[in-house]
């Protein structure tokens, strides 16, 4: 490799992601796919130009300038194209969204078999849980026994779900026709939910105790990445991908030496995977500007946790602001619980306890183990051992999960 090739190679590794995100921030009129093409072309052009004329004074600046000019040309061309083909029909490209009428999108079929199947499984008539089951069966290719174990269901129950769902899949038109982006776009949201649920199934229970769960997280990550790179992936896909990456980055720190569950405060933050966090941050930037989605909010919250050097250095005020946004999108008592906990750590104990005790009065939430666990921990932190113990002991009566039980017992022990 000569010096120019080496320089281009190094810049590519260092700058590719940054150039991409800078282009996407530079203009709403360019989507990720087009931006990737532009950056790629810019590097090819650099190789040719620098071999002829030698390295410029500031190679990185050269790259950014050329890529911006190329992006501008591309946007102008696209606008001309739309005007010519759609008869001036709207400024969709200016809005940065893709609708079913887009001539450009329709001509680009999905090339990934797995993705098409994924869309078929996200049939809108099926319950999300059933969508997850058939996705695990037909896309991830898990056996019924494995699916039953992962989801805590009986084999018989899975079989029943499958037989009902098979009919829907058989009726599924997108499997048998050349799938057009237009047919897939209305379903992207359902696909996101399936991927989110699959990742969570892998994530929420004991890491490392069952290898299959680890694979589940990986499968969800791979599918989400593929979706984010396909023509039907949108900003929400990037938000979801960022959320998964932030969580995946912290996976190794979630359990202690003896396999015990550790919370955010106890985790050894040096075990967090900084490469995954960086990748997540890039995806969070790609997701920016797409309007707030629940995944975007959750990813932003996870990102703030990942960015904090210590638990006490966490930017709780920013987290509270995002929770408020999340409640606007998805008001339910479970989100309020998390909101209240964040308020407590931001220093407003009165307001936090007010919300939690209000939730306690509700018949359903009053029997939710995490509500009691949160109250127990707060009273323990406040030095009110008696009330703390009461709440933690109620928690033990409300959950059957061995990890959670061990965790709460440890909290009780620590207090004594």
């Amino acid at each position: 490799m000569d010096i120019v090739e080496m320089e281009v190679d190094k810049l590519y590794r260092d700058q590719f992601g940054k150039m991409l995100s800078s282009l996407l921030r530079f203009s709403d009129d360019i989507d990720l796919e087009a931006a990737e093409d532009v950056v790629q072309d810019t590097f090819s052009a650099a190789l040719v130009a620098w071999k002829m004329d030698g390295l410029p004074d500031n190679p990185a600046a050269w790259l950014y300038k050329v890529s911006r000019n190329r992006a501008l040309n591309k946007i102008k061309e696209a606008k001309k194209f739309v005007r010519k083909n759609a008869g001036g029909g709207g400024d969709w490209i200016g809005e940065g969204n893709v609708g079913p009428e887009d001539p450009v999108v329709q001509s680009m079929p999905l090339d990934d078999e797995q993705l098409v199947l994924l869309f078929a499984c996200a049939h809108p008539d099926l319950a999300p849980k059933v969508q997850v089951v058939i996705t695990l069966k037909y896309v991830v290719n898990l056996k019924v026994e494995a699916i039953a174990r992962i989801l805590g269901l009986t084999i018989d129950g899975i079989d029943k779900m499958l037989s009902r769902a098979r009919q829907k899949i058989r009726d599924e038109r997108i499997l048998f026709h050349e799938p057009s982006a237009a047919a897939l776009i209305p379903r992207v949201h359902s696909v996101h939910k399936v991927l989110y649920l699959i990742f969570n199934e892998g994530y929420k229970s004991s890491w490392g105790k069952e290898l299959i769960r680890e694979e589940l997280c990986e499968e969800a990550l791979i599918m989400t990445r593929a979706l984010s790179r396909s023509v039907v992936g949108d900003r929400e896909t990037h938000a979801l991908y960022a959320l998964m990456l932030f969580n995946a980055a912290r996976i190794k720190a979630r359990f202690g030496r003896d396999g015990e569950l550790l919370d955010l405060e106890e985790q050894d933050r040096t075990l967090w995977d900084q490469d995954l966090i960086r990748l997540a941050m890039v995806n969070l930037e790609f997701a920016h500007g797409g309007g707030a989605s629940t995944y975007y909010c959750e990813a932003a919250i996870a990102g703030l946790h990942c960015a904090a050097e210590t638990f006490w250095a966490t930017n709780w005020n920013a987290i509270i602001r995002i929770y408020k946004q999340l409640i606007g999108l998805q008001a339910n008592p479970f989100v309020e619980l998390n909101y209240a906990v964040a308020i407590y750590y931001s220093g407003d104990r009165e307001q936090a306890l007010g919300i939690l005790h209000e939730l306690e009065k509700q018949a359903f939430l009053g029997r939710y183990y995490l509500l009691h666990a949160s109250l127990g921990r707060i009273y323990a932190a406040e030095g009110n051992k008696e009330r703390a113990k009461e709440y933690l002991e109620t928690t033990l009566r409300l959950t059957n999960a061995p990890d959670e039980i061990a965790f709460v017992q440890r909290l009780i022990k620590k207090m004594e």
Partner: protein
Amino acid sequence: MQKFMLIVREDLAQLKRDGEAERFRRMRIMTAWAESLQESVNFLGGEPLEITRRWVTRDQVLSDGPFIESKEGISGYIMINAENIEQAAAIAQGCPLVQQGFLIMEVSPILLNNGC
């Protein structure tokens, strides 16, 4: 996404006979189910009702009402988000208490003002 109400119907007389402890046991199952619905971004809220009733008609207030012997009464409600009524029904079908035959659910979209 559309909002749906799942109206929970149970044999109220039986529920009374079963006692508080049994009702609380079932509520815990509902809580766990609500948690799974919240994970799939479907749960909006819900509450169980007390068994005490008053039936009101034009002429009088009937303290126990004429329906106390009827098998089913409304024992609570759940609000969810779903793609369509098929999915909402499929979600309701997944409730463990429905599957164990303790209750049935009536699923209906919430009427929106379409202008008139």
